[in-house]
């Protein structure tokens, strides 16, 4: 952890109990190694300016900036008895219970409760299927949850069934983060039920199997032995400088421009947008806000028509809604709205948006659906 040059030996000794072992005095940086490490300012290209390398090694002896940085970290982290500073308040058992939501593979952290796939089915269809698909197949680009294709094929799609090593992970994740727009909104029994349903979709448990605090950890996931600890570094390259390959053998195997899938207008347009007259900028401002908010908060549902949302661009659908009056539409978008077609969450689930931003998005959506004034 602590690599201090010899200048700091004395200070280092002061760091009682720290893992700090001073290095022996550094040999001069060898020219051949091309080391620029530990030097500030100009580190030399090894074979051209050995004199600059000397500057580097001198700097090292007087204590370089990065050594000082490390020393300051070491001092700040100096070993002290627990409670030395006395800052902070004791965390009470009730406070901990409210926040301590994590679950481990051995089942530690699971709360009391239970549920079956049968009980979870309706909940899944209401709260999960719009994104993850009725069979867990994943709508559009939303994650796929079920499937057992082998992991060795071309572009395998990882799912709970073919990839996840532990059922506890599913409980923990659904409980902390799903449904996407309403995290931590499900009761413990609801989580058991919907988790049972996802396991059922993956054919890992029966429809009527009751999942609970004491048996969840024992659910055997097919890929539980599929992981091993990172063995990197796993490749060794050489520092070759001359004749490293035959120039005639070099082939271009890929050129990204042939695919043309990245936005590049911003650097391929020659006109610098900064030069755009200010008047043009302000004229498009409202539009721009509306579009930004729409892209960020509304498009996920109103683009493809998820969850029953009217699709932007579908003129008849919007004309009918427009007849209610703009203020009603904006109010529904701001406050949330349960209609015939589905549930529209307040501000699309993004409460941080200002009312005016949501209003701008509504105008933008109407404009792009041929339903503006």
């Amino acid at each position: 952890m602590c690599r201090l040059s010899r200048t700091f030996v004395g200070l280092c000794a002061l760091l009682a109990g720290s893992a700090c072992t001073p290095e022996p005095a550094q040999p001069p940086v060898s020219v051949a190694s091309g080391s620029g490490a530990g030097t500030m300012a100009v580190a030399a290209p090894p074979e051209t300016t050995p004199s600059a390398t000397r500057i580097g090694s001198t700097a090292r002896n007087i204590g370089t900036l990065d050594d000082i940085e490390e020393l300051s970290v070491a001092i700040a982290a100096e070993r002290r008895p627990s409670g030395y500073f006395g800052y902070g308040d004791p965390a009470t058992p009730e406070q901990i219970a409210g926040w301590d939501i994590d679950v481990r593979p051995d089942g530690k952290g699971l709360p009391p409760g239970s549920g079956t796939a049968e009980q979870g089915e309706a909940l899944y269809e209401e709260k999960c299927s719009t994104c993850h698909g009725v069979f867990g197949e994943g709508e559009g680009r939303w994650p796929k949850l079920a499937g057992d294709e082998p992991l060795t094929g071309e572009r395998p799609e990882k799912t709970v069934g073919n990839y996840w090593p532990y059922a506890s992970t599913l409980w923990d994740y659904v409980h902390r983060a799903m449904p996407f727009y309403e995290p931590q909104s499900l009761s413990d029994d609801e989580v058991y039920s919907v988790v049972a349903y996802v396991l059922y979709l993956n054919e890992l448990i029966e429809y009527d199997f009751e999942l609970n605090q004491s048996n969840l950890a024992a659910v055997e996931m097919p890929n539980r032995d599929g992981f091993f600890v990172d063995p990197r570094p796993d490749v060794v390259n050489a520092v070759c400088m001359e004749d490293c390959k035959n120039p005639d053998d070099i082939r271009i195997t890929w050129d990204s421009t042939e695919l043309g899938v990245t936005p590049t207008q911003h650097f391929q347009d020659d006109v610098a947008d900064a030069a755009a007259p200010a008047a043009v900028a302000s004229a498009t401002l409202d539009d721009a806000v509306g579009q930004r908010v729409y892209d960020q908060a509304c498009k996920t549902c109103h683009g493809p028509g998820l969850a029953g949302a009217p699709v932007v661009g579908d003129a008849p659908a919007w004309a009918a809604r427009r007849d209610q009056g703009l203020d009603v539409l904006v109010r529904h978008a701001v406050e949330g709205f349960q209609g015939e077609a589905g549930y529209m969450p307040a501000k699309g689930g993004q409460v941080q948006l200002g009312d005016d931003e949501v209003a701008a998005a509504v105008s933008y959506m109407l404009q792009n659906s041929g339903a503006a004034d």
Partner: protein
Amino acid sequence: MSDKPAGQRRDLKALLAQEAGKLPQPERRAFLANGLTLAGGAMLGSATSAAAANLPPEVPPWTRSVGRGVVTVPYGMPSRYEQDIVRRTVPWLTASAISSISFTPLHRLKGIITPNGLVFERYHGGVPEIDPAEHRLMVHGLVDRPLIFTMDDLMRFPSVSVIRFIECPANGGMEWRGAQMEALQFTHGMLSCCEWTGVPLATLLQEVGVSAEAKWLLAEGADGSGMSRSIPLEKALDDSIVVYAQNGEMLRPEQGYPLRLLNPGWEGNTSVKWLRRLELGDAAWYHREETSKYTDLMPDGRARKFSWVQETNSVITFPCPENGLKQAGKYEIEGLAWSGRGRIKRVDVSVDGGVSWRSARVKGLILPKALTRFGLEWDWDGGPALLQSRAVDETGYVQPTLAQLREARGVESIYHKNAIHTWRVAEGGGVTNVQIE
């Protein structure tokens, strides 16, 4: 973040064409400006003469007048001529902007520090808005004294400041099969480097008193994704920091305001943002972000877990697709190198696709686990060239070729692609992202 099946490519193109129909604000403005200029031939003429009127020997209006006074702009912003230098995203990569990624414009940054407003974004549940007065950090589990800290408490501890990079392990992950990102911003932009200030995690752990059985720690965020990662205690005691400030000011909301973890040199996802809880335990938690995600699938169907380190990497930032060459002559090839294991020791550059290499000059500060700038003078003859950079870190690890990585890992592992990157310079100076064999 996986790349798309071949059959889907055409769909992607169609999708993208659609997206282009709704250009983001700067492009739209440029488009409008362009349209206006073309519409008014007279304007075009006057614009040209206006520009000439400001060049020597003429004296421009800003020299013959005074500018705006203090605090006209209380929090300063870049010049309006730099409006194009922004984070950008590739819309089709993810289903929703709330769980998505944006990229740092590396092609226009200088030195090694990323300005706060340009640090790449990666959220799994959007950016929460947290009042620091209401933020708490709970430290509990296998400890002597479970504690809850306020921001004031945390800022009273002796602090440290270090310059370290943060990189998403999926950086470059779209290119395991082939080159498809047409800009440096998208090939390498999930990468930023800041000066971070906070309390060493070791200090906090000493304050609560860690039990002897504790081996792991769970870090958890206060955001709507409840981001959680297991961190081994050795790392926590080595160089992890609980951070509240970045480049001299409080963290940006996008970077975890008011509090985040920093695990230097490790994949960015472990540096949990909006940090609310640290729990000490005797085993890893195997949460979603360390099983379903952030594990590396190998050709045999098994996967690497706990692949934390960001290995030695480098890329040329000039020239690059965004920064083409104009006329033949002398240039400085510039780039960035970094290693999650320590300092960069050397960087070599090739202009002939890796046949021959020259050592670059490593410039400025050479800090462990930080971006490191390099440069090499080059006399471009105006002809085609294949530019590459190859970094070596202080452990002696040499940045590998893509062929070596594919040989060892196949093409499905998504994360940790740190291969030598190739830019093709065409006759005329245009630069494109290519892969070569």
